[in-house]
Each structure stands twice: as structure tokens, then as C-alpha cells.
């Protein structure tokens, strides 16, 4: 299949990327140093994803993405198996953002996701240049952690941005807008939940359900606000929880940006995300007031896939059959959850027993091979 190839270290590319993401989105993009081909412009809209060209030279490429549509969009460059090579999250209508990414020779897909859900609008992207040298598995594993940390970083940034919007809506007393933003801001949280959970007491402050709190401790976070929004249809009294949520999310984001992970942690994180789906999402207990569980469900699976696909080149060398199974079973889960899609979101999650069971079956079918990844990558 696809031998793992690279010309320059991914780490170097990562530094450039982080600089771009944290910089101002309105700036006119400058061509990256050493890039003689100029940026690819991407015109994203609610139903289109037009690239100025679909052939780029291997090395560092810049994609200048402008959103001319009415929905928030995301832009990804995927390698085989939807391995994320680079992405920009949370591009609001009228905004422009740059993705600077290191792409070795090979075939890719450029994908816009208007409304942030589903498979997105996909097109081929070909990277040509001198044939890249094959790297050994250890290098591939090291690259995987760099790649996944970049993913965590971009999710964390989007989490802070969207939570800021959510908190502003809550404080403004805009119930409708708050309800709309609740599942969206949680998407970024759920994608990187195992990382966020590793920061001890921040997870309960941000994400505790009512029964996760012991007497004498105040219940705070997303679900506290969720209860007010859906049970009381009100934001009354929520200002202090909204403020606290943003403080806590900012703390998580700051930590997530500096987190150092090893390949085993990626594999275990991917497994834990599916545990979350199996025990908390399928049962409907996560978002018990809003019934927006399917947003979290999808985000957990996306986060799991991001970690697994970062490991893909190494896995491919060690156990190609497992990679095939993972691809098939990830697709099956996304297909199952797609049945519940309405517009840019999901139907409220009130499944029949048969529906709940179907979701459970596809998640179990995926979680089992995902749990084998750690053993494969630890193999010497």
C-alpha cells in the first residue's frame, strides 16, 4: 500500500503550522520559506470546495481557505484512511485561514466540511516530487505523535474559540443561540477528551454529570448549563457557570497545547474514546437534557480515528490486515451515526432499543480491533 514517506521532519512543519494557527486569521498569507509554488487558494462554501490547483510539489504547502458560505467550515488534508495531514477548524462565514502543511509525495484528499459534520466535500490532491525515502517504524511512530499533537493543538484552539462564543451567548441570555452552540463547542472537547481528562480535576469541573458530584461540591461546567437551557429554557443564574467554564476550558487548552504524548498513549486514547461512546453516549446519559449525544458520539469516534490514523504508517508496516479492518469498521460506525443526521446536526437522541443496539454493535466491532493497536505498536 502506501509506504511511509517523508522528506523533511514533520516537526519542522509543525512549528510553521502552529504559528499560522495562532496568528491572526485575517492576515494576508505569505508564502512559506522555501516554498516556490505559492499558496493554493481554497474557496469553501456551503456546497463547494474549490481549490485553485490540485497538484502541488512535495514539501511545505500553504492552503489559503476562505469561507464564502453561511456555515462554519473546516478544511482537512487527508492521506489514505482519512489520516489527518493537516487541518484548520472553525472557519466562520467570511473568514480566511491558512493551513501550512508538510506533504510528502503521494495522493491525498482535500476536504471542506461545511457545518462541520459528515464526510465533507472531497477532491483529490496530488503531491509530486522526488520519490521520498521510506522511513523505519520507529520514525513513523515518532512522526505519529508529532502529527497527533498537532491535531490536539488545533482542536484545543477551536475548543477555546467555540466555548468563548457559547459562553457569550449564555451570558447574553440568548437561549436559542446557546442551545445551537452547546453541541458544537463540545465537539472539540469530545474529540480530545482523553487528553483533557489527563489534567486531573479539570475534567470534572468542565464535564461532570449531575451524579458525578458529591455533596459539598458545586456542580459546574457544560452540563450544568445544559440543564438550565433545556430543562428551564433559560440562562438565568448561569453567568457564573459560563464564566467559570471559560476559565477552565482556557486552562485545559493551555495544557493541551504543550502536552507530550507517546505512541502508546495515542493508541490508548483512541481506545478510551470508544469506551466513552460505549458506556456514556450510546446509553444517552451524557447529554441527558439536550439529547445531543450523537454530536459527542461522532466527535469521540473522529478523535479516535485521528489518533489511530496518525499511527497508520507504522501500523501498515506491522499489521496491514489490522489497518484494513480498522478502515472498514470506522466507516461502519460513521455510516450508522449518519442515519441520524438532520441538516448540519443530528436528531435528538431518543433511540429505540433496536437502534441503540445497532449503534452498540458497530461500536463494539470497532473498539475490539482498536484495542489491539497498542499491542501492535509496542511490538519490537
Amino acid at each position, binding site marked *: 500500500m502506501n509506504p511511509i514517506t517523508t522528506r523533511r521532519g514533520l516537526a519542522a512543519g509543525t512549528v510553521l503550522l502552529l504559528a499560522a494557527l495562532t496568528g491572526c486569521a485575517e492576515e494576508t498569507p505569505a508564502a512559506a520559506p522555501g516554498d516556490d509554488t505559492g499558496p493554493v487558494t481554497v474557496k469553501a462554501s456551503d456546497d463547494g470546495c474549490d481549490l485553485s490547483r490540485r497538484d502541488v510539489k512535495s514539501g511545505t504547502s500553504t492552503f489559503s481557505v476562505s469561507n464564502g458560505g453561511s456555515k462554519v467550515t473546516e478544511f482537512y488534508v487527508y492521506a489514505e484512511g482519512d489520516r489527518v495531514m493537516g487541518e484548520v477548524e472553525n472557519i466562520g462565514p467570511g473568514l480566511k485561514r491558512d493551513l501550512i502543511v508538510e506533504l510528502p509525495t503521494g495522493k491525498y484528499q482535500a476536504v471542506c466540511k461545511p457545518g462541520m459534520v459528515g464526510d465533507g466535500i472531497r477532491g483529490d490532491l496530488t503531491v509530486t516530487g522526488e520519490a521520498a525515502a521510506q522511513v523505519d517504524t520507529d520514525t513513523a511512530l515518532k512522526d505519529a505523535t508529532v502529527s497527533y499533537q498537532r491535531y490536539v493543538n488545533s482542536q484545543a484552539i477551536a475548543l477555546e474559540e467555540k466555548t468563548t462564543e457559547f459562553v457569550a451567548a449564555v451570558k447574553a441570555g440568548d437561549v436559542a443561540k446557546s442551545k445551537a452552540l452547546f453541541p458544537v463547542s463540545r465537539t472539540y472537547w469530545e474529540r480530545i477528551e482523553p487528553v483533557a481528562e489527563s489534567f486531573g480535576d479539570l475534567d*470534572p469541573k468542565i464535564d461532570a454529570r449531575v*451524579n*458525578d*458530584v*458529591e*455533596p459539598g461540591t458545586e456542580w459546574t461546567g457544560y452540563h450544568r448549563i445544559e440543564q438550565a437551557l433545556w430543562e428551564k429554557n433559560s440562562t438565568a443564574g448561569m453567568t457564573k457557570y459560563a464564566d467559570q467554564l471559560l476559565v477552565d476550558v482556557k486552562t485545559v487548552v493551555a495544557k493541551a497545547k504543550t502536552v507530550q504524548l507517546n505512541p502508546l498513549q495515542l493508541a*490508548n486514547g483512541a*481506545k*478510551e474514546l470508544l*469506551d466513552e461512546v*460505549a*458506556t456514556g453516549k*450510546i446509553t444517552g*446519559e451524557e447529554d441527558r437534557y439536550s439529547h445531543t449525544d450523537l454530536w459527542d458520539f461522532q466527535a469521540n469516534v473522529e478523535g479516535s480515528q485521528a489518533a489511530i490514523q496518525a499511527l497508520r504508517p507504522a501500523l501498515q508496516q506491522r499489521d496491514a490486515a489490522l489497518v484494513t479492518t480498522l478502515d472498514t469498521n470506522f466507516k461502519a460506525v460513521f455510516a450508522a451515526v449518519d442515519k441520524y443526521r438532520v441538516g448540519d446536526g443530528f436528531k435528538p437522541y431518543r433511540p429505540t*432499543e433496536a437502534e*441503540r*443496539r445497532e449503534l*452498540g*454493535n458497530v461500536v*463494539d466491532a470497532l*473498539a*475490539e480491533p*482498536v*484495542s489491539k493497536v*497498542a*499491542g501492535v505498536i509496542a511490538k519490537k
Partner: protein
Amino acid sequence: MSEPKKGISRRGLFGAAGAAVATGVAGYAAHSVLSSEESQAADTSGPVEFHGQHQAGIVTPAQDRLHFATFDVTTDKRDQVIALLKEWTAAAALMTAGRDIGQYGAVNGPAEAPPEDTGEAVGLPPARLTLTIGFGPSFFQDAKGNDRFGLKARRPAALVDLPHFIGDNLDPARSGGDIAVQACSDDPQVAVHAIRNLARIGFGTTAVRYSQLGFGRTSSTSRAQTTPRNLFGFKDGTNNLKLEDTAKLEQQLWVQPEDGPDWMVGGSYLVARRIRMTIETWDRTSLSEQELIVGRGKGTGAPLGKSEEFDPIDFEAKGADGELKIAKDAHIRLAHPQFNNGAELLRRGYNFVDGSDGLGRLDAGLFFLAYQRDPRKQFIPIQRQLARSDVMNEYIRHVGSGIFACPGGVPAGSFWGEKLFG
């Protein structure tokens, strides 16, 4: 033993094959003289003495099977409750001795009447059946605080309502109960027979609130027993309180005269928790992660860093990487007396699998039963710490709960709860 046996011996009846045995006294006299609790552990068929200073079924070497039930009292008449407790006690004494209940037992009564004993234990040995009773907070006062049977003032201070612990997801239908009866036996049918017959006797006075089967013990309560495994596949209860720890039992298990109330002296407090294990996600967890969560090796049961199950735990030991061998949030650290002001529990929980959950997963877990001298100093602080920090919480969920005051033993001629009502 101390009083003449009544009722019909199940094996005697079986052997007599239909002969009219009015008072089957034969049968078990020889077997029933067991010199110590240890010898009972070896003999899985004989009887365990029902009467004594303490109730049986607490330090009795843990039997292999459980049928636990709690009952709601459906009458408001104190005399009716006392009458039931007397009838239950008589039946319990017979069943634990391996006898049918009633005058005629299962098959020797009038053909026109339903049999007194339901009959499914006919031919089975006593199988070390023990029946242990406890009274829940709601037995003393109802939800509004009203005195139900003139016992409100006798409610022990230690019989507190359990607080909400982090992550509790309790099903009211599997929690609480006015009276609990724990039936343990080495034969599952003998345990079920006991609860079934008590429930039947109770109709009109009590109704079963919930019942729970346990198919395998998860603790040993004697050094003569090997340590069994729970459904995580780990040895459970290695450092449990054991019946041989007599001094410690006085300190940790039995209510002492200075604790009060009088009717609880020699008794113990039972906390029951139905703990669902998400075994499917657990099974996808790496061996090293499982061992880190528990703090013990899965094969030997030895504390991490040691080689044998009963080696003393070294909580300070660090590996080559500088990390604690037994992590800060490992289960055995958080549950250990050293980190709980010396508090210990006598655990005698059971594995359960109650079919499946409708999602293609087993409804499996641990029915946790723990006896102690004072839950305010033992179960509650220990569980509070576990609920906050135990990494194992990712794989378990407490879905049922109960607390019960189990009085001291029943002297011959007395009945369950006599001192409470006295």
C-alpha cells in the same frame, strides 16, 4: 447441638423414599458436629450452626453462591412483623440444618394443600447454608421520618443513610429495603430455596423489593480458603479481614458494648452495593494497564513489585523510571487501611451475570457485600476516596445500594430481632 431438630431431613426423606416420616430427626446429627469454622470450609456439604454469639454468614468461610434479597414491610402492625420474624427464624433454623420447613415439609402433607416447603432442595445437602438478617434505615422510620413500629428511637446512630458518592448511578428499584436477608451456600439451589421460602412466608407482611444472585464468591474470609477472582480476572480480597484475625474482628467487625445500642452488640453493619462492571471495555485494556489500575499482578495476585500474593505491599517502591510501582490512584492503595486511617472491611461479595443488557453486553459485575463495626468510619470514608480517585471507576458503576444493621447472633429459643423489639 443446642436444641432438638424439628422438620424433615431432606436427605432422610430422599432415602426414605416416601415413607411417612413425621419427625425426621435422623440424618445430620453426625455431620453437624463440626469443631470449627475452618473445618466447615473444607466440607462443602454439611450444615453451619444457625445459633450462636454472632449471626452465621459473616465470618463463616465464604460459600460459593449467594442469593440476596431485600424486603419491604407492607404492614404497619408491629405484632405482625414480630410474628413474621419468629416464623422466619424457625424456617431459617430448619433450612440451614438441611431440613424442609413446616410440619410436613415438601411432600408429606395433605394432598389437597400446597406443600409447606417448595421442594427444590429435597435431596440436597445443607451445603453450608447461612441466613443473615439486617434491618435498613427505612425499617425504623419512613421517608417522612414517621416511626413505623415504635423502633425509631432504637435506630443505631451508625445506621446512617449512605451519602451520594461521585459517579453513583443508583436504581431505586435495586436499592434500599426495610429488611435484607443474605443466603449463602455452596449449592445455588439451596440458597435460592431459602430466599424463596422466606419470601413465601412473608406474603402479607413483606414483599420482595429486589433479589440478587451471585454465582461465585469474590472474597475469602478464612485463611483456609484460596483467594478467588472477580470478573476483571483479578484475585479479590487478598487482604480481607479473616475469621482467624480474632482481635481485629472485635476492633473492625463486631459492634462492641460501648458502641451501643444494646441490641446491636455482637452484630455488624452490612453495606451492599451492586457494582456493574463494563467488562467489555475492560477486556480491551492492556494487561499492564489492568495491573496498574488494580496494583497487583494478574497472574499471581502479588502486589506490583513483589512476587507472591501475600507479600507485604510496598507503597513507596519506585521502578527504574522513577514512577511509583503502585500508582497514586491504584485501587489497592486507595482501598488500603494505611490510607484510610486503619479502617478495614470484611468483604464477602459475589460475581454476578444477570443475563445481558440489551446492547449485546453482559449485565455483569460484583455484588459487593461488606460487614463492619461502623460504616461512618469504614465504608463511607473508604468509598468516598475510591469514588474520587480510583482509576477503576472508568470500568465500574455503582447501580444499587443498601445499608443494614445486622444484630448479634440468635440464641437458641430466641428469634431474629428479638432484642430490637424487646
